[in-house]
């Protein structure tokens, strides 16, 4: 039986009777968040959509190529940027005594979108996960210590996932920075804004209760 995706259909063009379209669908299908249906819809939109509604394929290819060439990680903080160092690291309006440690470049985006944080960042590029083979030597902890010493940081804010890996990484950073003359803080955990108590899990509720504040 010639089901889509069984390997045989690539040569025959699969359900489309077009090997090139099948290849395009498969390529799109490998992107995060795109199942085969969505990939097919996008592929057909790119290939067979009307001129008025379709993004020209050449334009898309050029945009991807340009972004791949120009976008890089900031040498100082590790965030995704085009000018290197990034605007956050070079801005004089940022508070240089504050540094926020995040796990991945994507984690910088919600802070910048919200706009309330005026300090700088340090992107670890991952979280400690011994079970998955991510060890301390795989992450730039030495660079982090150098950065804290050079910039005379007064407060380090740990903004990592509330998971075992995030907890472990936070505890590791705490151990590394012990004894330094700086404030070490972590993001609070608890009930999200707009969240319903009835749908809150036990652990989140317990932590929210433990860290309740005077009203």
């Amino acid at each position, binding site marked *: 039986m010639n089901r889509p995706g069984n390997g045989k259909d690539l040569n025959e063009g699969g359900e489309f009777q077009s090997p090139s379209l099948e290849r395009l669908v498969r390529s799109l299908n490998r992107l995060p968040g795109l199942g085969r249906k969505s990939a097919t819809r996008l592929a057909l939109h790119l290939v067979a959509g009307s001129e008025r509604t379709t993004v020209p394929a050449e334009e898309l290819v050029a945009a991807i190529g340009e972004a791949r060439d120009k976008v890089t990680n900031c040498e100082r903080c590790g965030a995704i940027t085009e000018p290197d160092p990034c605007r956050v690291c070079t801005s004089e309006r940022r508070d240089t005594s504050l540094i926020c440690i995040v796990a991945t470049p994507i984690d910088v985006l919600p802070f910048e979108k919200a706009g309330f944080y005026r300090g700088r960042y340090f992107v670890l590029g991952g979280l400690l996960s011994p079970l998955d083979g991510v060890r*301390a030597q795989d992450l730039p902890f030495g660079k982090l210590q*150098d950065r804290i010493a050079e910039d005379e940081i007064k407060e380090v804010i740990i903004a990592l996932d509330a*998971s075992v890996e995030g907890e472990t990484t936070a505890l590791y950073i705490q151990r590394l920075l012990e004894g330094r003359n700086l404030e070490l803080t972590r993001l609070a955990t608890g009930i999200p804004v707009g969240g319903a108590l009835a749908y809150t*899990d*036990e*652990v989140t509720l317990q932590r929210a209760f433990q860290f309740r504040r005077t009203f």
Partner: protein
Amino acid sequence: MGVLPQPSASSESLVLRIWPCGETSVIASLLTQDHGYVKVIAKAARRPNSRLRALVEPGRLVSAEFSLDPSRELQYLRGGSVEKDPLGPGSTLEDSAFLQGALELVDRCRPHGGGSDDQDDHDPTAELFAICDAFIRVLSSRSCPHPDLAFFVFEWELLVSHGMAPEVAGCTACGLPPAEVSELTMWFSPAEGGLICGDCSRGDGVSSGKPLSLDALQIFESMAERQLDLADDIPFERPLRREIGAHLHNFLGYHLPGYRLPAALELLRARKDPNR
């Protein structure tokens, strides 16, 4: 037309490992009290409002409800509640490292047999679950001043559950009780199965053994008799910790197939660099 009820089970479980699956789901490896090792998929567990999200964090003791279809390798996690969260507020790097070290050992050194289908009264996975349960509860209670000692007890019990309990009641070769063995000539040998006296150690038989201090012997005796109160702040200095850790590591490496030093313990080498 009626719908046949799906077979399901509810069991106390320890979450050993997780893997992301697709965009929002999680596959979790569980050690359950009643059904041995079970792999489940928690659909949409990575969505912010998922009720399953809290149930699939490694190291948590959960009361899990899951499908139980013998024809499927992967069961569906349907719900449950968290019983113990060992890495809550107040936990330390030691707690985290020893917890993950224990999870790694339980995942790698699996006992043979087990599960509810076993006809034998002795269920090794249920016994292993009980050991893990005790360890997680000690870590969660934050009442243990020495999480490393709790981990060593866990390792000892792991050996016991595999039928490899070290012999410390007397010399494994001649049976001489420890009180009659000179402290200077006590050895601990994985090859011989535990304590060995100086006289018996002459020869090639204990080439893999190491000297055993009286303090370490006393700790081992307490472990063997299950009389070690982990809430007690007993003197447990660094040299003694290192000695006991090394003895157990050698013993586990000799007797348990698949054993290696848990990678999580490397986290404890975190040191402040004074030059930075």
